[in-house]
């Protein structure tokens, strides 16, 4: 799946976020989006996911301008980690069960076993599943979101500051995991230097 921005213009009230932004991302690419806070990195992901629309210009998916059907399709192919991880109230396990019960995820029949294997990989203990989600630390929430993204077995990762709340050792674990995911397309927003060391990673700078 290729994602292309063509002369995209986007503003919020008086603030211009994108002025004539164009780029193309091919399947299998690894892109790191850079730019100071407030330059529109999160907005860019929101546009890709169809949560917001451009003011002018076009977003093309596989060469076709986005429309509701394409957006539905795309959302079944991406694994998104939002900058703010807010999964709801209640026990982690119940939240996971409910998210995995979506029609789009019912093909994932072995996610529970995979989950058990992934938790220790990112230094989480199994009892986190029995805890209240709201009681978790920022870093725990972030790792949980990463694990969910992996469990979804999607082909495109959209990671919005996925390692911001983690210590160096964990940042390295996570970036190492994704460096081995050569099967997937990676779109990453992060200020962490660890991501720059991924093989074949290209940066798109959103300043100016």
């Amino acid at each position: 799946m290729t994602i292309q921005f063509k002369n995209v213009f986007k503003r919020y009230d008086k603030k211009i976020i994108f002025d004539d932004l164009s780029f193309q991302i091919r399947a299998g690419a690894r892109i790191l989006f850079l730019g100071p806070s407030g330059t529109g990195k999160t907005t860019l992901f929101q546009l890709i996911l169809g949560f917001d629309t451009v003011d002018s210009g076009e977003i093309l998916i596989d060469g076709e301008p986005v429309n509701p059907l394409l957006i539905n399709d795309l959302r079944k192919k991406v694994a998104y980690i939002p900058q703010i991880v807010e999964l709801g109230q209640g026990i982690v396990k119940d939240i996971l069960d409910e998210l995995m019960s979506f029609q789009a995820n019912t093909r994932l029949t072995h996610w529970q076993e995979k989950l058990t294997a992934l938790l220790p990989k990112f230094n989480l203990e199994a009892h986190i599943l029995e805890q209240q989600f709201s009681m978790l630390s920022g870093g725990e929430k972030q790792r949980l979101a990463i694990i969910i993204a992996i469990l979804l077995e999607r082909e495109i990762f959209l990671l919005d500051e996925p390692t911001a709340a983690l210590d160096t050792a964990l940042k390295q674990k996570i970036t190492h995991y994704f460096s081995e995911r050569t099967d997937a397309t990676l779109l990453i927003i992060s200020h962490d230097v660890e991501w720059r060391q991924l093989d074949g990673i290209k940066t798109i700078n959103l300043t100016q």
Partner: protein
Amino acid sequence: MSTPDISWMGIFFMILLLVIPIVLDYWLRLKLAKDIIISVVRMLVQLSLMGLFLEYLIQWDSLALNITWFFVMVFAASHSAIQRNKLSFRRFWKPIMGAMVIAVAFAVLYFNALIINAKDLFSARFFVVISGMILGNSMKGIIIVLDKFYTNISKEKHRYFYRLSMGASRFEALRPWIQQSIRASLQPIIATTATMGLVSIPGMMTGQMLGGSSPMLAIKYQMAIVLVIFVAMIISVVLALFFSIWVVINRNGNF
């Protein structure tokens, strides 16, 4: 046994009662006098008009007029529900009115046909009076459900977008807010139903007994009315919410 009439003297004493709140207001400087007087005057005028109107409605008992009046009441209730929530009239009037028409018509016809076995389902005495009673409660339910739903979801935008990003359908993504808001809208009536007959004598029963009915008959009517009101309320709450979602939120889940 028949109801004693209230004479002009009686009405004078009824209005004289207002002296008490006015004196208390003055004494405690509550600054409520204006609000009290306005609301009481409104109540008196509205009920007088309604009484006059019902008098004729029952006297003429015309099918067309009764049904027209039904729609006027539904429209007024929808309008009020939209205003209370500060919603856009253009987007919300169809879902809300549609929900009320279906729920209230079903409930009142069920009541007339199957519970009290009325000869004429649309006679003003039953159709207009009972649907008015059901309507008020359905309106309260709709006000709560839409308020909770749209307020809570905008408070939890991140969570909502996350669910959509997973490929959830519109209704899958909205599930937590659908559940929360429907629960919140029904809790008050569930609570009052449970205490009915324990603390106070419900208004309708009081009226009927003053009108000379036996307590047992009044109670049978009361039970039927409570159930019919409850069922109409849950139907209108669910329909208003789902209709509004269809109209207001597109297939991609965007507002």
